[in-house]
């Protein structure tokens, strides 16, 4: 029996790609800040395109989940974070690492299974680590890092130094029981945790209308008495502004918060494909419509409208990034694999005398 939508969207226009396509509002934002956002989003975009090519070339064999189209979420949230904060991600976390300032070469080396990678070549795309920038780990078990982030929030509270924990997850993870246990625990213990749901309206091949009675994930935060805000996740300034308020409250001791950023991935669940053939209701026309709400184009258009950027400058930024990233990729391809001894040496942190 073919499933069909039976309920109107609670997200309304945020779930309708025909809306929210105009250049974003940037009044009052420093030009330097905007250039930083643009550069960071473009960097993430190009890195992930390169990762897609590595998959197509057969060099990256492990599952690579690309977040092309979702760059504004990580960049907007990270603008409010410090290296002492503790950030955790999931299976689609390249952007979370890079937006914090993670190293492109180390990410690509990790994806290729090389010793120089973020996880010394032991994790691949789905198990990243970059504590030096505040990224404490990502894993692909859906929702698994949510309670771990809550525990990091408990540590932040015990430390008493104003740091917070951030948990990135998707709309699919909102269907896991651990999400609710974790929000409840964080609320009861009043922990400084920002739950960031990147609601891209899909989990693997199924759209959210086939999986939940409402497409608005923030309702779960409200049920747990957590401050919850839904924003246009393809508007970096809106994301940053909402994150600023919620993170500020968490740092002041007001307890956890939930930020739902509505977005869309241009590629399929895994790999560089678009998944128009496997998505029950995913179509080329839907993907094209969402490309009209591209987070990078919208900030670039806004900057051009305010004469903060022109076409040649945009192309120059992009060309420089492509060159840097291509060089990093070449280095990563040439880098060494872990020694065979790594297979057993890293099972335990402590080894017997």
């Amino acid at each position, binding site marked *: 029996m073919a499933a069909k939508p039976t309920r109107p969207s609670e997200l309304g226009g945020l779930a309708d790609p025909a809306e929210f396509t105009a250049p974003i509002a940037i009044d009052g934002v420093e030009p330097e800040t905007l250039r930083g956002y643009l550069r960071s989003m473009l960097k993430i975009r190009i890195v992930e395109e390169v990762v897609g090519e590595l998959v197509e070339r057969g060099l990256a064999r492990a599952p690579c989940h690309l977040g092309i189209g979702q760059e504004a979420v990580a960049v907007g949230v990270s603008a409010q974070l410090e290296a002492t904060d503790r950030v*955790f991600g999931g299976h689609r976390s390249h952007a979370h690492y890079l937006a914090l300032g993670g190293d492109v070469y180390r990410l690509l080396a990790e994806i290729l299974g090389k010793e120089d990678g973020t996880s*010394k070549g032991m994790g691949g795309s789905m198990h990243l680590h970059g504590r030096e920038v505040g990224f404490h780990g990502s894993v692909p078990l859906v929702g698994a890092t949510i309670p771990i982030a809550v525990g*990091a929030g408990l540590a932040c509270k015990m430390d008493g130094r104003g740091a917070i924990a951030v948990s990135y997850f998707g709309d699919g993870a909102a269907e896991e029981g*651990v999400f609710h246990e974790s929000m409840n625990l964080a609320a009861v213990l009043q922990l400084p945790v920002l739950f960031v749901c990147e609601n891209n309206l899909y989990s693997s091949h199924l759209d959210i209308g086939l999986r939940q009675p409402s497409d608005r994930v923030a309702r779960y935060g409200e049920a747990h008495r957590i401050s919850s805000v839904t924003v246009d996740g393809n508007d970096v300034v809106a994301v940053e502004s909402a994150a600023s308020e919620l993170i500020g409250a968490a740092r002041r001791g007001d307890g956890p918060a939930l930020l739902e950023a509505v977005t869309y991935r241009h590629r399929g669940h895994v790999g560089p494909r678009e998944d128009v053939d496997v998505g029950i209701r995913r179509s080329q026309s839907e993907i094209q419509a969402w490309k009209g709400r591209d987070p990078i184009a919208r900030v670039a258009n806004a900057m051009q409208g305010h004469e903060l950027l022109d076409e040649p400058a945009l192309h120059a930024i992009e060309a420089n990034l492509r060159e840097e990233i291509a060089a990093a990729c070449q280095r990563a391809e040439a880098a060494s694999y872990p020694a065979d001894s790594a297979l057993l040496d890293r099972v*335990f942190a402590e080894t017997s005398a």
Partner: protein
Amino acid sequence: MSASETNYGSAIRAGFEYLLSSYPKVFAIGQGLWSPWYVGNSMTDLDRKFGRDRIIDTPVSELACTGAAIGASLCGYRPIVVHPRMDFMLLAVDQIVNQAAKWSHMLGGQVSPAVTVRAIINRGGEQGAQHSQSLHAWFAHIPGLRVVMPSTPTDARDLLIASVLCDDPVLYIDDRWLYERSEVLAPPRELALRDQRCAIRRSGRDVTLVGAGYSAFLCEQAADQLSAQGVDCEVIDPRVINPLDEATILASVNRTRALCVVDGGWRNSGFAGEVLALTAEALELGTLRVPPIRITLPDAPAPTSKTLEAIYYPTVESIVAAVANQLR
């Protein structure tokens, strides 16, 4: 119990007290920690002495609480997450097996969740299938997770301390059937868990008995009775079942040339089978004088009816009878 002896439950409490007094980064989290009866006498009044910020009683959320302990451990804390019954801990298996045990390896050895997961085996008393399980073998199967099963009050205290001070994730399994076992305790010691070996609880010539946790206690008592029948048993208490100190077991079986493994878990793919397998693999052909035996639970869930319960668990008597038969 004489006045100077301490029982197993109190010894666990002494371990907590030592850790909480000596190490500010240690805390405990789990269900029932502010209750006088969830965990026997093993944590009595710790919340009053050390405060409810360090002894955290929680919502009914085994999975999130275990994950939270792991998260705090990644940030430099030394949490002990307490599961008053191992059966309920199964709700937290993703965090124990997929997360705690794997983060060191899959993140290139750059982090290690120094978390202690305390699971209590609490069975008997007609509690039935979901309040009785000893699932240590499941967890000993997992690379990266140390599994500790103390059988004496001294080990209950000192291996708890060693588990918490270890940089690796540890599943520490204690058994309510041992809580009244008592002995005179020396002052607490800080042992390196990685260096702990099997204990030879009793030396003997005729047969090696191997059992972990409560099964070690059963083996010691069976050895006493068998001694009266002229059978000289060597009793090996593994103490840590992952990674397992195989050398001590193999050396003992090489001496006695007979092996009986007692285990409170099931037979199929269980701990007893593992010990038999490692001896079969490593010993010279013909070393064993008699076929090895294993005494385990029957492959059935724990019953509630007292008549069925009476035939379900290994006992001193069943071990004595089986070993006497084995050596006949």
